[in-house]
């Protein structure tokens, strides 16, 4: 149990992970006065491409998005390797690579579309929104969870 193991190899218990995520949100508000929200950042990145917005490639959402995979890389530095495996998704797609890609693509598209429609994703609504006591965020989070629970039970318990 040395520092290297804790930082780069192991996963953390729920309270430590939540503490880190919460502190990141607070730090972002403290340093920049910005609200945390990954789907908002993604949307800003897409706006750059569509030239719908004044956001540019040097604005902060783009840099935030670049930072995310670097963080994931750091967290798994100790045992990092490429893999196509994707947990139980491999079982659901019967080991068929293209079917898996299709499922993941559809899921991703639903998430992207729904996140914009709802006005935020898990980070924006569920963490920051509820922390600010926003009623809409609570409603949306309930919708997230209910739909997710129903879908997961349908896909993995019924089928």
């Amino acid at each position, binding site marked *: 149990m040395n520092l290297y193991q804790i930082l780069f190899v192991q996963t953390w218990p729920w309270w430590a992970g939540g503490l*880190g995520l919460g502190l990141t949100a607070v730090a972002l508000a403290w340093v920049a006065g910005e609200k945390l929200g990954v789907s908002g950042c993604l949307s800003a990145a897409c706006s750059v491409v569509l030239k719908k917005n004044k956001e540019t490639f040097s604005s902060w959402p783009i840099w935030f998005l670049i930072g995310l995979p670097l963080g*994931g890389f750091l967290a798994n530095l100790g045992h990092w390797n490429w893999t196509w495996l994707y947990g139980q998704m491999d079982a659901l797609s019967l080991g068929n690579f293209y079917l898996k890609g299709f499922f993941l693509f559809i899921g991703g598209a639903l998430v992207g579309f729904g996140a914009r429609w709802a006005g935020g994703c898990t980070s924006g609504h569920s963490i920051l929104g509820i922390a600010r006591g926003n009623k809409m965020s609570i409603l949306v989070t309930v919708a*997230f969870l209910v739909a997710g629970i129903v879908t997961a039970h349908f896909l993995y318990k019924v089928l």
Partner: protein
Amino acid sequence: MAKKIIAPKKTINKEIRLTSQPKIQTKKSSYHLGFLAIFFGIAFGFFLSKSRATDFDTILNMFLFTDFQLYGVIAVAIAVTALGLFLLHRNQKSIAKQIDQWENPVIDRKKMIGGFVFGIGWALAGICPGTAITQLGEGKWSAIFPIFGLIVGIFAYFKLMPEVKRKK
């Protein structure tokens, strides 16, 4: 703040639509952050990965009620954020002013449908936008599919529902 800047009436329709989007006005402060945001991105991705949010099975087991890790993560994150924002709001006047400027989404039950759509995708692909991008850095190749889907979904939203965006 967002509504103060209104395009002159003489400008053509297209320009009005462009300038009346709230993001342009409310995000003026964002340009101060610039590339420093990469450190926040790194921190957020790191903690997402550490809390196992980037693992498909963890998210699935959360929905199947066999693993309560992520409920705990989200609950603690909410508590920490709420406490932190409360303290910031009380002790830092300039930050408090900015926090007050954050737009509060109005209650709109139609948005719940978006939430349901999101939830279905969340369970199917096992990702939320942040974790999909983080997975790419973890070496999970398969994450390119949901990321591609995310981008397509957002573009589709822009194309299909511009009126919703303008109404905000």
